[in-house]
């Protein structure tokens, strides 16, 4: 599959080749059939040659409290009491591969974050300067800075596998079929079927989480309790932070014009008024005291 670049960070004109017709791909995660086996976590570490990360006991089965620069795929074991019982709302946490990536919008390094034509958002460590702006840009709290490398890191949606026609490692390893991979259209269609099944089985609020605040994501998630995405650790209405938009889209062009205006203003002033001459610069008053 082609790796044409749709968007590139800090690129003034973008780098849309527009030559090929490439479908947007997507991962499909069904939280209702996840059994929390963590095979996807292992597969992710294995395929991406990530070093072992020491686990942390937080009172649940969860491997780590949160994602890590060396741990890109984490099953979150969310526990929730209701109707007198306990629901175990396991969700695979990872980069959501937003259609409008906040990390890319915030990134100041040309080409350090790219979005391929197929929708995958990837980091190019060569170009990353480790400024951590992407941490602020991301509405899902995904990018992680590695103190070892001085770069940020996150799930690549196994772009190296996808580009040669393979499914991501996590999908390959999933034993229950709660993970699928395909075109976004196919995954949304599959999701709609599953949501229909859940609704018919008493989960009236079931939804396919594909947040439109970031124009959809290349990871679509089935939530049985779709009215409460926060139960799964997902934001209800994620979008690129307003501060980042204001900073890049409004303040930056205004600032550029203001600086240009100041330089032109100074030139115009000099052309109109010239230097402010000091009259009688050579005169000397002999009566004044000396140092």
């Amino acid at each position, binding site marked *: 599959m082609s790796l044409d670049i749709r968007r590139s960070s800090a690129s003034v004109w973008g780098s849309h080749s527009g030559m090929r017709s490439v479908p947007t791909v997507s991962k499909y995660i069904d939280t209702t059939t996840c059994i929390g086996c963590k095979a996807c976590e292992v597969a992710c570490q294995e395929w991406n040659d990530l070093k072992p990360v020491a686990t942390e006991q937080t009172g649940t089965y969860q491997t780590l409290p949160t994602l890590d620069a060396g741990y890109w795929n984490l099953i979150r074991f969310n526990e929730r009491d209701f109707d007198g019982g306990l629901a175990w709302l396991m969700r695979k946490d990872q980069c959501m591969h937003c259609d409008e990536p906040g990390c890319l919008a915030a990134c*100041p390094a*040309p080409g350090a974050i790219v979005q391929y034509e197929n929708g995958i958002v990837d980091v190019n460590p060569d*170009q990353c300067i480790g400024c951590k702006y992407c941490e602020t840009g991301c509405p899902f709290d995904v990018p992680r800075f590695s103190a070892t490398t001085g770069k940020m890191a996150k799930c690549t949606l196994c772009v190296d596998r996808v580009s040669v026609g393979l499914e991501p490692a996590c999908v390959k390893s999933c034993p229950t079929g709660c993970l699928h991979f395909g075109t976004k259209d196919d995954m949304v269609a599959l999701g709609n079927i599953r949501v229909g099944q859940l609704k018919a089985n008493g989960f009236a609020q079931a939804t396919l989480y594909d947040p439109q605040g970031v124009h959809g994501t290349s990871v679509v998630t089935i939530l049985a309790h779709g009215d409460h995405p926060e139960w799964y650790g997902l934001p209800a209405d994620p979008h690129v932070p307003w*501060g*980042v938009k204001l900073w890049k889209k409004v303040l930056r062009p205004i*600032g550029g014009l*203001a600086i240009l*205006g100041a330089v032109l203003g100074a030139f115009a002033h000099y052309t109109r008024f010239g230097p*402010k001459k000091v009259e009688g610069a050579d005169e000397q008053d002999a009566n004044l005291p000396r140092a």
Partner: protein
Amino acid sequence: MSAVNPNRPMDTAIAVARTREDVVVGNEIVRHRLFSRYMHWAVAVTFVVCLLTGMPIWTPVFGWMATLFGGLSVCRVVHSWVGVAFFLASAAQFVEWMHDMHVEAWEKDWLGPRVFRYLRYEKDDPRTGKYNGGQKLYFWAVSLGAVGLMLSGLLMWFPTGFPSFLRQAAYLIHDFTFICFVVSLVFHVYLGTAAEPGTFGSMTRGTVTRAWARLHHPRWYRDVTGDDSRRP
């Protein structure tokens, strides 16, 4: 005075300007002693380095500036540390100059139309002391700006753990302050060099001519020289 070359008479003004200011030496008046000039050059150089390393991070339009330092990732490191140096130099300069920077009531109109009268080269108020109202206000603005840049810069340098809205606010404050800084700096440098000949010497030799002082800072001229004859 040591090491005087007998073939080249000692420049008395330079010698005096090492330690003293507000004194007359021949046709010159010492405006800034050596320490004061060192401080201002430290602020200027660190600011320009921060400008050249920050602009390519601000927008790729100025990406070429990063080449001067060996790339964007070098800029990121240099910008942070030189930024700290800029803050320290600004703080030292603040302490050095603050005593002369009390804005008097009649100078408040420098916030308004007086700026434009000044730019049209209308005669300065005879009450103008060592610094005019514009310079005083600029001093307080850049001092406050240096604090703003430092605090927001620290947050941008070490964002982990801070809530998102604070980090976003830091970016906006850092950018806004930087833009105000650059816009005013363009005029600061322009007025200090091309627009007002004789001014730049106060940053190099430390001295200005009597005529310059009489024109730009009449009350300071009178105070330093005791010359009341030209009082308007």
